[in-house]
């Protein structure tokens, strides 16, 4: 393997409901920095059905080249079909780095591709850098439940690959009208070669606001004592128009479903306001919310580590504080709105 043959930073572009998912745009932003540092190009690999037109979006967000595999065989994500397309693309064009969003799809695909190439794959990276002269990717990630950060290298194989947590990197401001090179490819895989079928896709509709997309997240922890006690979290979230978050303990206790979980094994969130109510602040929770705009912690234990990670803290009884806040908020807001009319 001659490393000189490998160049360019690639991003696997994930498409959902006909749109590019946010993490792919974030990775184009991160990838652009790496590409500039290496003096190389940034490319997106776009796989799906009726997706070619999305290349325009990718150019606007920084891609110089977009490789497209547009075929009905790619209608739904399936490991075997997407993997084949990406592997063929890699063999043909030999990228130095491939980045994937650390989503269900991105992680599934990256794991399969890494094994077949083979090459090294760093999971759930939160910091990316590249050595200008050698092209060595420095992918850092929280490890051991967030207790430590580790930088992972892949020195002997190319391409180097990493999955990257959503909501950690920043997308570039789109440049309307920016264009690039569109390369349309055809994969050799046939439907009869694929051993899985997607029979149905079910989307939850009960989830009012997706927690990783919400401006306001009200999260609760085991300190609330019970599922009944956790109701104050729902109440405040409803009052503020926010989404409900939870610590791992709460999800494990079954008070709310897993898609509410914030942290290392749950979702990373970066809302403008994050409430942590009755959450002690274990490191594995902190890694999932520490980049929120304004973090407010309410806990009856003055020694709770969560106060170290919050902008404002209240030591007190959540069952007294939260209902009072809800009441004051409602009053203030009705007042405010009247003032402005």
């Amino acid at each position, binding site marked *: 393997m001659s490393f000189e043959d490998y160049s360019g930073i690639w991003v696997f572009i994930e498409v959902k409901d006909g749109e590019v998912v946010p993490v792919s745009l974030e990775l184009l932003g991160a990838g652009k920095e790496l590409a500039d540092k290496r003096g190389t190009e940034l490319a997106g690999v776009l796989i799906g059905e009726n997706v070619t037109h999305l290349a325009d979006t990718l150019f606007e967000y920084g891609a110089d080249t977009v490789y497209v595999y547009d075929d009905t065989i790619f209608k739904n994500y399936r*490991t075997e079909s997407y993997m084949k397309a990406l592997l063929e693309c890699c063999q043909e064009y030999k990228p130095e780095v491939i980045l994937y969003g650390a*989503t*269900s799809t991105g*992680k*599934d695909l990256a*794991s399969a591709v*890494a*094994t077949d190439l*083979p090459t*090294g794959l760093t*999971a759930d990276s939160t910091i990316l850098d590249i050595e200008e002269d050698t092209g060595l990717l420095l992918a*850092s990630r929280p490890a*051991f*439940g*967030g*207790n*430590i950060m580790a930088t*992972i*290298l*892949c020195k*002997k194989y190319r391409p180097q690959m990493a999955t990257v947590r959503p909501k950690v990197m920043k997308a570039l401001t789109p440049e309307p009208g920016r264009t690039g090179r569109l390369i349309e490819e055809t994969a050799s895989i046939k439907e009869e070669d694929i*051993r*899985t*079928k*997607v*029979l*149905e*896709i*079910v989307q*939850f509709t009960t989830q009012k606001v*997706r927690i990783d997309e919400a401006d*306001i997240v009200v999260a609760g922890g085991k300190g609330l004592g019970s599922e009944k006690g956790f109701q104050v979290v729902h109440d405040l979230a*409803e*009052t*503020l*128009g926010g989404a409900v978050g939870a610590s791992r303990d709460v999800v494990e206790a079954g008070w709310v*479903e*897993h898609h509410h979980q914030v942290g290392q*094994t749950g979702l990373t969130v970066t809302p403008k306001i994050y409430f942590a109510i009755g959450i002690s602040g274990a490191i*594995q929770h902190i890694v999932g919310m520490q980049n929120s705009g*304004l*973090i*407010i912690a309410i806990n009856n234990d003055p020694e709770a580590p969560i106060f*170290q*990670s*919050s902008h*404002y*803290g209240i030591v007190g*009884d959540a069952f*007294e*504080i939260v209902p*009072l*806040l*809800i009441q*004051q908020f*409602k009053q*203030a*807001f009705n007042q*405010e*709105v009247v003032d402005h009319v």
Partner: protein
Amino acid sequence: MLHIVACIKQVPDTKIIKMNPKTNTMDRASAPAILNPYDAHAVEEAVRLKKKYGGTVSVLTMGPPPAVKAIKKCIEIGADEGYMISDRAFAGADTLATSYALTKAIEKISQIKPVDLIICGKMTIDGDTGQVGPGIARRLDMPPLTSVNKVKEINVEEGYAIVHRKLEDGYEVIQSTMPCLMSVEKEINDVPYSSMTNMLKAARYQPVIWAVADLEDVERTQLGLKGSPTIVSKVWAPKKPSGGEMLEGDAAQQTEQLLNLLLEKKELFVAKGGSGVEL
């Protein structure tokens, strides 16, 4: 009759592990070694499928000799057989080298009894990657089914499985040919307390232990540190946040200060109009 292999790992309980602040290393003695929580659900699912469709559950782990304890835990859950691969040559393996070694062990298990289904936990709590399961699937040329939160149907005669695969905002229903590999979410089942019979069986159970020399067609260069494309170059403790301002006073004073903070960002509430706010 199904033969299911569940891949498991003994891990330090990262929820309570302490760091040595001087060396930035983990104080492993501070955390008990446990069966990786996701793997307990993998074994439980295997046992449930066995009860429903008939068959055998084998568990497989790679680890140092004390990891036998994790296998015993799986026997308590209801697994029938335990296999362990243990050798210094495996040490330092990343996900690629780990999936290689486990694949070699599964090939050997398959010679004893052909394998229909492999179940792994979604990830381990010490590695947090979720890459080993799909890696094994690719190496054995089985379809990898990741993030499975329900096994809807197994059709042994026709050789297919139908599962729910969890997505960010829902799930997809997938049909796959068998043999296949599933990595499962915790929500797939609850692991009940073990029966006394299983606990007694586990207490005296001794797994089959293989060293590298016991496996076949092994390329030693693909094992352990040597076979691992990734290396850890630097480890550091995440910087401790310094903490913010505490809002003092009685409850009413505290919430009033909090309210003022929220009012500074009132565009969030007016624009979105939470149901509590009447616009």
